[in-house]
């Protein structure tokens, strides 16, 4: 530490000073540090001790989040969001589930949030016919597909009018749900290790690089439907938004955008339609979990059984928003009739409240 400090100090001083004149300073922060050192030395005078009034922030107060920079604030909230999540898998049934346990409770119980089962290899091979057909649309959608390779915030902003200057906390909530999705979907992708379309045929020839992780469920679909669900819930919770509330009024466009982003990955040749379907379920469930944690409400367990995602004669099913996710049983998509509490998350609750103010 001391070596670094002194080296930095002397090097910065001489290098910055002379570099400033010769016009080639490496790090602009060094220039500023030099200026501050010179300035203080000129004005400081003899030190008079701790002379100011200071209010000490309360212990473990959620409102202290307002004091922190964006990155640390989101990180603090994220650890709270992840607390109590665990994965279970069953090699016999080839099922896996995401469960939640309220670790703050004296009586810790695990409760399933999402149950997942991938389609079989034979089903994926049938889905490849759809992937090949979707390739027709590549020329139409190349611009969108490339624009959506990174998180497609501009598309969401365009639907609900998100702006960087006005909706900072809303954007941090979206950041959180994205991070939650990425962490959860990567575990499921790892567990199921589904084979990508490119592996089944040399004729798929994706128009973008196939990502280095499993195919099912689609991460883009998971994230897109999570953002759609989160924004709908947030806009519905804005006080005085009218009836029906603006989230409900925006739902169709949000859902269509999520479906478009998901299907664009199929068009590009890196996913199957059933990946979109699995992602739709998972993303919806994860956003519901975040909202329930932030607002102290309850969630309904959701499930997706890929083996049931096919036509009556085993033909491959395309992905469609018209497929209901709310069957209680007997369908690929299921939603439990009973609900589960997911505990309190004061940091998330604070962020949620701040985000709501941005839409007032």
């Amino acid at each position, binding site marked *: 530490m001391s070596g670094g400090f002194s080296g930095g100090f002397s090097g910065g001083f001489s290098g910055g000073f002379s570099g400033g004149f010769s016009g080639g300073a490496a790090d602009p922060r060094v220039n500023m540090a030099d200026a501050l050192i010179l300035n203080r030395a000129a004005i400081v005078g003899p030190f008079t001790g701790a002379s100011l009034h200071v209010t000490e922030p309360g212990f473990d107060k959620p409102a202290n989040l307002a004091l922190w920079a964006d990155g640390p604030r989101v990180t603090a909230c994220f650890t709270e969001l992840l607390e109590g999540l665990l994965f279970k898998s069953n090699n016999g049934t080839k099922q896996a589930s995401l469960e939640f346990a309220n670790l703050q409770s004296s009586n810790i119980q695990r409760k399933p949030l999402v149950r997942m089962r991938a389609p079989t290899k034979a089903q994926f091979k049938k889905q490849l016919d759809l992937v090949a*057909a979707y*390739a*027709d649309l590549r020329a*139409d959608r190349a611009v969108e597909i490339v624009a959506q390779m990174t998180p497609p915030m501009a598309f969401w902003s365009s639907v609900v009018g998100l702006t960087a200057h006005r909706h900072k906390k809303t954007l941090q909530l979206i950041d959180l749900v994205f991070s939650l999705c990425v962490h959860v979907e990567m575990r499921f992708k790892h567990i199921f290790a589904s084979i990508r379309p490119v592996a089944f045929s040399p004729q798929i020839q994706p128009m973008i690089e196939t990502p280095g992780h499993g195919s099912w469920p689609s991460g883009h679909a998971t994230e897109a439907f999570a953002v759609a669900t989160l924004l709908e819930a947030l806009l519905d919770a804005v006080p005085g938004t009218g009836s029906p509330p603006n989230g409900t009024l925006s739902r169709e466009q949000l859902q269509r955008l999520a479906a478009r982003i998901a299907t664009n990955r199929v068009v590009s040749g890196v996913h199957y339609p059933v990946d979109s379907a699995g992602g739709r379920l998972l993303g919806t469930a994860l956003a519901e979990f975040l909202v329930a944690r932030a607002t102290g409400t309850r969630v309904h367990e959701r499930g997706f059984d890929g083996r049931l995602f096919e036509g009556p004669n085993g033909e491959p099913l395309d992905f469609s928003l018209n497929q209901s996710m709310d069957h209680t049983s007997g369908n690929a998509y299921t939603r439990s009739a009973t609900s589960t509490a997911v505990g309190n998350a004061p940091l998330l609750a604070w962020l949620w409240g701040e985000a709501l103010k941005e839409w007032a």
Partner: protein
Amino acid sequence: MSWQPLPTGEFTGIDWNAPGAIDGEDPYLIWAEADQFAGYHFGRGKKPPKWLPIVIELTAEADVPALVAASSTAWLQIPRVYLNVPGLRFCTARVKKRFFDQLRNNPHFRGLILRFELGLPVGHHTHPLVDPCTPGSHPDHAPGLLDGKVLGLIDGGLAFANDQFLDAQGRTRVKHFWRQDDTVNGNWPGNQPHHCVPLDPARAGPTPCDMGYGHELSGAAIDAAMAAYTRHGQLDEDALYEHLQLWDLSRPVNHGTHVMSLACGKGNLLHPMDDEASRCDLVAVQLDWSNVLDTSGGAMNVSVLDGLMYILARCAPSAQLVVNISWGTLAGPHDGTSVLEAAMDQLVALLGGRLQIAVPAGNAYQSRTHANATLPPGGSVALHWCVQPDDRTESYLEIWLPAGAQNVRISVTPPGQTQPLPPMAMGQGGTWVNAQGSPLCGLIYPTTSALGSHGTCALLALAPTFSRRRSVVTGPFGTWKVVLSNTGSTETLFDAYIERDDVAIGQNTGARQSYLEDVFYDTSGNLGSFVDHADNPTPVRRSGTFNSLSTGQNTVSVGGVRAQSSAGGHFALYSPRKPDPDAGRPQRPGVKKVPETLKASDDNPALWGVLGAGSRSGSVVRLAGTSSAAPLEARDMLNGL
């Protein structure tokens, strides 16, 4: 808000508001008189045209000589070429005001004419013809009649000196070339030049006396000009076209050249074509650019029919002729009974197999320009017609009803209005005007129409939404709501077609295509969203969107497919399909919505269009559309003769 009565026409002298006056007439003529021909660049404060171009269908007992005998060239001028085909019941003409006096006052004359449609009254189309038919005149016989297999082309921009169209000796295979324009730099709606300089006959060629307008070049004249601009064995094509005052042909891409190369070119080094079509004689008619750029409905009728008659007049009676017309519009009866389609049908029939005509099926399959729905008793259907801002041309919606639909009422709500204009019943017409009394919108809803032979057509016509000139009246843009209500006790149905209003290659007319909007119409672009589905309740239908000059009985309509089909299908997305994916849908009698045949107009789903000749020798360009499918069929027809 109310409808104002239709005026008494300044040109026709017809009181369009009188009972029955609009029945059986061309609604575009009525609308033109209501807005003082504003759509054709006359309008308020300007003199109306002196002559109007029209196309006429004669009654069953009449023929062209009888019409000529009953009229005077002082007020009715018919190109002499129409004397060439005995028994023909169709002709084009230019007429003065007295023509309409005669229709009113001369029962014999009136009895000769079944119906007529307005052509495109701009530029020289409003001038008298050179040497029209006079009583007792005989058919002309042009020199250099072609025999054997001949291919005719009617199109814009036909670069006849491209080596695709030269014979083994380097002479042009275009033995007769007729350009329909008359002035330097063209003349068209939206781009009227201030000074019209006539073409120089010494360069552009003489006016063919049997046509009465335009300029003609013989093959020998083209060859002589080519020789004059050939240095060291190399033809300077730019200089040649400059000399011939064919400035358009110096542009790198021309629709007609591309089409002509597909119909009769020699292919390229990779895919040489050595068939009869690559060697046969050619007759080429270059449409007036005012036509190519036109945005209104009936405007092609006169030019295309004249073009067809020219091609026939340059062939011997024993010649076998295939004509390709890669052009079209969107509105019309679609049952083959427009005047132009009926005329083509009769010509093909009269020539007894010596004439075949290939036409494209159209490119508007995804353009939302057609609606079709059943109207049960007491039922109604709402159409939402979206007219774009910055549209500098008029927009038109034709609503076609079958016979027996007299209880259908039409109600129109302009954009921004909360209340509709009073519902209009069949037999009525009116205009909705601005504060100065100028029409922003016209609805002409007769009991029968000159535009087609069955049922009727209601025309809704709108003013442009933008102009840089103060004198042009502009109307609101946005969504016009048009509600059709069946107040009768029997079920009926309708087809509504928006007229074509887009911009041709390389032009800037300020036209913008309007379209229909509906909540159930699938615009997702997903698989399965490019065709109609029987269970979708939207009235906006792809099926039935069809080139309105290719629904005749005797012409061959050609749809477009992909050369390499894919898992997603083999149809070009812009083309009507065969069979119709939604064939069970009720339709007016006789409507054609399925092409006769199919040819490749796209290479594959990613590479739309096919390669063909650019304007200059050796250049290759890719153009998409069923305009490329029709000439491939024409080529097969000629080779199969």
